[in-house]
Structures are given as C-alpha cells and as structure tokens.
C-alpha cells in the first residue's frame, strides 16, 4: 500500500452530506454501544438511518478506510506486557522487500517504512513484536532475523517501559459529535 492521500470523506460514502459523515465517524470512534441493535443507536446519534450507517460502514470497509471491525483489546491487561518496537536501518534499495517479508511473520503486528532524520535518526523500517515476556520477544526476533537473513542490518529493540496512553485514533475534530 502506498502512502495514500487521504480520500475526501464524500468520496467514500454514498451520503453527500459531509457533516453526517463526520458525525458518524465521531460516534464510531467511541465504539458500538453494547446493545442488541448497536447500529441503530449509532444512527440515532449521527442523525442517520440504521441502513445508511451500515451501508456507510460497509463502504468504508471495502475502501480500506476501516481496516478491521471488532474487539479492540488492551493487550497489556491480558498480560501481554512486552511490547518491542524494532527499528532497522535498511539500505533504500532493499527496504520494501525486507518490509514485506517482515510483515508476513506471524509475530510481527505492524511494519512501516518511515523517513530517516539524519544525523539524529538513521532507522527507516519499524516493526512491532508483542509477547508475554521480553525473553520471548527477543527469541522471536532472533528467529526472524535468522530466517530472513537480517543479521547484518543495524537495528535496535525498544521495549516499552510504561504506557502513558493507549487508545484508538481520534481523527475527527473535537466538538462535531
């Protein structure tokens, strides 16, 4: 996937009233109410019909604006406390290949290319590996590095030591809901 230009909201939903989209986005970002007809409740909050809301969500899913729909779990609360951000300095002509291969590893939950900021920041590829304990995460990383022959690449493992905030995206301007 390329670094896409954000699509105008109007282009991804059949409704032609941007304010309704923003309201729907804002209520969706809070999550579904845990009631038998959650879409109906959301529709009422957004000033739309239940069917329109579901159609809009399906469209956003098809377009990729919604990546997944379901339980957003706080892994730390389940005991998955080791969270490593591994940063790699990969030659530019190899970074896409390495990124794609890393992303296919089951233990890798996110993999992004980002810019270097020389001289302060030489790393251009980021991936996340989670696990119950650090030793397990490091063992996974070692296995991956061996499988993909990444041993030569300069990299650093940044474990999180404290979560000051962990929550979903809030992209919609505050105050529109």
């Amino acid at each position, binding site marked *: 996937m390329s670094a896409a230009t954000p699509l105008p909201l109007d282009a991804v939903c059949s409704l032609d009233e941007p304010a309704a989209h923003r309201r729907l986005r804002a209520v969706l970002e809070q999550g579904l109410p*845990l009631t038998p007809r959650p879409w109906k409740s959301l529709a009422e909050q957004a000033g739309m019909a239940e069917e329109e809301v579901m159609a809009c969500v399906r469209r956003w899913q098809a377009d990729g604006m919604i990546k997944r*729909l379901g339980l957003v779990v706080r892994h730390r609360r389940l005991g998955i406390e080791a969270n490593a951000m591994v940063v790699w300095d990969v030659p530019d002509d190899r970074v896409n290949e390495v990124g794609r291969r890393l992303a296919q590893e089951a233990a890798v939950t996110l993999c992004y290319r980002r810019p270097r900021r020389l001289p302060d920041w030489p790393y251009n590829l980021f991936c996340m590996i989670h696990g119950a304990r650090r030793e397990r995460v490091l063992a996974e990383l070692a296995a991956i590095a061996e499988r993909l022959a990444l041993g030569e690449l300069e990299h650093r493992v940044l474990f999180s030591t404290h979560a000051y905030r962990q929550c979903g995206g809030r992209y919609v301007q505050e105050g529109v809901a």
Partner: protein
Amino acid sequence: MHCHPRDFDSLDRGLIDIYQRGLPVCTRPFLSVAERLGTSETEVIARLERLHSLDVLSRVGPVFDHARAGASLLAAVAVPEETRDAFAALINAAPGVNHNYAREGLAREQGYNLWFVMTAPDEPELEARLDALEAHLGVPILRLPMLEGYHIDLSFPIPWAELECT
C-alpha cells in the same frame, strides 16, 4: 497489574480470538456472534460488558486506517528520565495524542525515550499541533510519518498458554 488468563473462560477467549476482526455488519451483530459461538445474544453482550469493565476491552468498533482516515504520525522526544512523567503528562494533554509510551533501548546519543502518535483531521492541523506541542515542551520533536505500510493490523492471536505460565 493485569488480569489472569483464568479469569477468561472459553467463551471469553472465543470472543477475543475470533472477533478482533470480522464483526458482522448486520442489524443484530451480537446475535450473529452468539449463534457462531453457541450462546445467546444476551450472554455475548454481558461478556463484552464484563471485558469492558475489566478494561481488557477498549471498545467494540472499527479501526480506521491512519493514512486514510486523517493525518497522523509517530513522534518522539528525548527527555531526562527524572522528568519523563511530567513531559508525558504535557504530551497527553495535547489534542490528538492517542498513544504515548516510554521506551528504552536506544544508544545514549539518540536518547528518544517518549514515543507517541499524534493525530489530526488533516496535515496542516497535524503540523500545527506538533509545532504548538514542540514550543510547549521546549525540546525538538522527531517526526516520523508513515511512508509505506506493509502490515497495518493490530489484531493478533493471544498466546493463552504462554500467559497461563506467567
């Protein structure tokens, strides 16, 4: 402090394992979930409420693609460890911050120890928020936008067996 795996029976685990993605978009999604898991809609809702009250469940809902749902980037600052909490509080107070972690493991000369994700409705607003925060913090913010996403899905299998041993 976290919950223990024994707090979660097979129905809880089924919900978590199966429905981090693919919640059906239909008028009664929890009924559809219940039918697949062999229980009732009421029970599914009760379980989700419990997971939410235990703070295991952040929410049930969509995860938007950062690159398309608005503007966001990964940012970092290098601050003295002894004042890290105060810097983190200032960052959390800024509009649009949705992740904020202390991390260790860099060489001293890099020193970035607070990592956060800043979001905004669009790019100009994102820049404005970062500029304002940078001025407020008084330290430079390393700005690392995503250039390419190879794998952008935070759903992953929970290693229940491994957790049982911790």
